[in-house]
């Protein structure tokens, strides 16, 4: 992999200065991405908890990820998946969450930076929302995006990767039943005449309500000061989304079954440990993949919250956060540390890989993996040091022909800003800008990775 030399243009500088409003006034030569037929069509961003034990996540010679203890082994498990997906995986080493490190948003807060390329003070949308809303990738789908999580629904710093323009965290759906309702329930009608009549009336009433709310919002917007416009534009966008969902129907796609809620009778948030983590995660992944393939949305994110007390692996202590991630002792690239602590963290990482591999498999089975850009990152490199340098990144899917998997790419120990990955992502969708995110130094947000 080579790094493209940064070309700093006016747009780049303005973005780096946080001049979103000025950028909006620049003429856009880009058609809505929904109208494009070539290149990548789907984006999926995933947050992985706890960093990854570098001693066990990096492939060995010949892209061997099946060696004893390798946390990426699930991608090559043909017995479980039907075939190996090792050739769909690019292991990217050497990314730093630079804008966050420089803007006091690292460690447990670092997830803020993963898809935004900005620190806590950033005003730009995360790449998923940028593509879906600002670049129109979600313009003609019933949902512009799906923002999912497991284990923690709070839109708190450190618990989100999706951010709206203006820098506000978006809430996550953590209950698979709600995910199903949002994505499919209104679209599954059947032929019952009573249900059809009820739906038709609800659509009619819904349109009337939308007109009313839109007028009301328009009056408010006319009085609102400039500094509150982002907020009202987000509200307008939400009304458009609501309108789309009223008139949508499934064409040529079989919806998934309604999630069996008896499999997750109680949902809990981070600290208490999500007791049905595995069931919920599987359902969220399956619904996410189905939503993409059914054309419900083209953009989705998934936040896998802290795995503490999820009891997913009897060989690990209950408190994975403290007793595994905090006890990880590694010398990093220099080597050294406590091998037992590597193995423990790698076991936990192995679990996360099984979930990502499941997602890749589902996208493949549904025939959309080649058009999907899938990126999965953690907020920390060495989790016991809470450092957001050298964070693990996994890239999968075909990226519309731009990504060749089965490779391990090392960007080096100096640390490459994750903004460059985000620039590459937007370019895979045809957005020919050379920058993404906000940082004091334009060089942080500028440049792409050649994949």
């Amino acid at each position: 992999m080579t790094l493209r030399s940064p070309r700093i243009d006016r747009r780049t500088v303005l973005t780096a200065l946080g001049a979103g409003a000025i950028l909006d006034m620049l003429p856009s030569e880009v058609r809505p991405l929904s109208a494009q037929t070539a290149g990548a069509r789907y984006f999926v961003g995933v947050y992985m908890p706890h960093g990854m034990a570098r001693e066990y996540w990096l492939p060995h010679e010949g892209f061997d990820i099946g060696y004893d203890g390798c946390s990426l082994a699930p991608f090559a498990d043909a017995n479980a998946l039907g075939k190996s997906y090792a050739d769909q995986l690019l292991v990217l080493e050497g990314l730093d969450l630079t804008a966050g490190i420089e803007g006091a948003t690292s460690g447990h807060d670092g997830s803020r930076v993963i898809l935004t390329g900005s620190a806590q003070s950033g005003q730009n949308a995360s790449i998923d929302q940028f593509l879906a809303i600002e670049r129109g990738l979600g313009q003609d789908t019933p949902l512009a995006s799906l923002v999912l999580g497991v284990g923690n629904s709070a839109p708190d710093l450190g618990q989100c990767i999706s951010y709206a323009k203006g820098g506000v965290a978006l809430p996550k759906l953590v209950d698979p039943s709600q995910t199903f309702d949002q994505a499919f329930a209104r679209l599954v009608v059947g032929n019952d005449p009573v249900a059809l009549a009820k739906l038709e009336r609800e659509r009619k009433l819904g349109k009337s309500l939308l007109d009313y709310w839109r007028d009301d919002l328009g009056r408010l917007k006319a009085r609102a000061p400039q500094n509150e416009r982002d907020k009202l534009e987000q509200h307008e966008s939400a009304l458009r989304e609501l309108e789309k969902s009223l008139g949508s129907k499934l064409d040529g796609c079989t919806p998934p079954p309604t999630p069996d809620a008896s499999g997750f009778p109680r949902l809990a948030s981070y600290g208490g440990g999500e007791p049905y983590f595995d069931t919920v995660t599987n359902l969220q992944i399956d619904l996410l993949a189905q939503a993409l393939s059914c054309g419900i949305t083209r953009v989705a994110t998934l936040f896998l919250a802290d795995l503490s007390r999820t009891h997913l692996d009897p060989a690990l202590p209950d408190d994975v956060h403290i007793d595994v991630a905090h006890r990880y002792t590694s010398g990093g690239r220099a080597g050294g540390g406590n091998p037992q602590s590597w193995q423990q963290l790698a076991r936990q990482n192995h679990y996360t890989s099984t979930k990502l591999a499941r997602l890749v498999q589902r996208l493949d089975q549904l025939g959309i993996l080649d058009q999907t850009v899938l990126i999965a990152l953690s907020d920390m490199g060495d989790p016991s040091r809470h450092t957001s340098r050298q964070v693990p990144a996994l890239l999968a899917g075909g990226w519309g022909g731009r990504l060749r998997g089965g490779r391990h790419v090392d960007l080096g120990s100096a640390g490459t800003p994750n903004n460059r990955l985000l620039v590459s992502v937007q370019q895979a969708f045809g957005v020919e800008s050379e920058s993404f995110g906000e940082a004091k130094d334009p060089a942080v947000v500028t440049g792409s990775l050649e994949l």
Partner: protein
Amino acid sequence: MRCTLPLLLCCSLAACSTSTPDEQPEAHASTSASQLLAPSLRRLSVAELSAAASSLVGTDVDLASALPADARQHDFSRSLTQSVDSLTLKQLVAATRDVAERLEPTSPTLPACARDALADDQACQAQLITSLATEAFRRAPNEGELSSLRAIFETGAAGASFRDGAVLVVRALLGSPELLYETALGSSTVGARLSLGDDELASQLSWLIGGAPPDAELRRAASEGELHSGRERRRQALRLLQNPAARSLYRRFVEEWLGLTRLRSLAKASSVAPDFAELREPMLHETETVIDDAFVSTGGALQQLFAGSYSIVPSELSNLYGIAATGAEQRVSLGKLGRVGLLQQASFLATFAHEDESAPVLRGKAVLERLLCRQLPKPGELGIELVLPPPNPAATTRERFALHAREPRCAACHDPLDGVGFTFENFDAVGRLRSSEAGKPVDTTGHLLLDGQDLPLRDSAELSLALAGSQELAECAARQVVRFAAGLDATAVEDDFVRATRSLAEPERDSIIGLFLAFVEGDWFAWRARP
């Protein structure tokens, strides 16, 4: 007026004023525009939306389980960062549809004629729409708004019933931007300043003090222009404080200020407290009881909150506090437990601790940032990578964190942080008293620069007593009141308000309610800077 606040405070508060109140908008010019907030739109918090829905349909509505959690600022759920994103809107629309469909024709918020009106009863329709819109908008609706709502009613009632029309009107109002946002946009300009309108004043006052939409008396006062007077706002605020909802709001302010709402999503290592999940609510309940008590007896005096000498301990916590269980709540003298005030309650100590050990840094940071409003840089801003002290069962937490003092780059910030944090070292990760750790006696000595004096501290009880009587705590409380009211950091306004509070009488300056009253009486509340 009947006053459930302590008589002395109530009378004192009613008579006090911070600065010359603005009897008329145009007559007042004491606060410069740079010391005023910007015009704003604040989306109501989930609790406020629940209150608005409850008042519209006349029954208790709780939207907490239906809507995404609040986006917060400084842990405050009154926040300008709240927005209406796609998911929130869809869930709000679904939840409020359910609320509206449960509407009974006998609801107290509907006119009596609605009980047996036919779908085409125009007179009853007009009555119903005016009544509901007034409640939803916190003001009288204008003709354009009434006309739009008539169209909504007719769509709902067409081919259906009068009630169906009413249900659709309620759904429209519950999703209306006019209801979802509290506006502070201003209605008239005086130089570089904007005066909030009558209805905005009523709405702001009611949400900030009463935790609910304006009632009839407040709307009357607004319609007669009375709320431009600081004294009248104070009088109305004192009236609103008699409502139970006001006490909930004040309680929420204290809990969010201290960051205690985080406790609900925290866990502890099973080696420390295997039953922690069952202790969280009792811990918060204990704190809320003491906060409520302080409201009733002193209007939330800082002295009582932070140097209080007793607590009401729920039975579930008796083991943790080392007292005999009686199966019921017990009023306990804190002196006997070796504790004092809110900072030595389990809720604070467990919130600001790690899962398996105490956390001098978190506790020190909580005191310095939350109670003294000091700004501490994050290590990343100074180019310092966070390195947690390695586990060492043979060392005390204090010994392990002593690394900070040895590393000069860390010491600058950590000396004040740890000087406070170490004073809590006699409390473990859940707030249980301990005298030793790793086989060694705990060392709770520390120090704090407070009101210009470097105070040596024997422990956090001494810290609490020093804080409770300090000017810095009172001034930080004033600053937090501004943040809560404004929904964001507003340094210039905070500074100006803090200056003004220095001339207040002590009961007012040193109590939460006194500070709220002083704020609503002043220009900071009633004016905005022209953009």
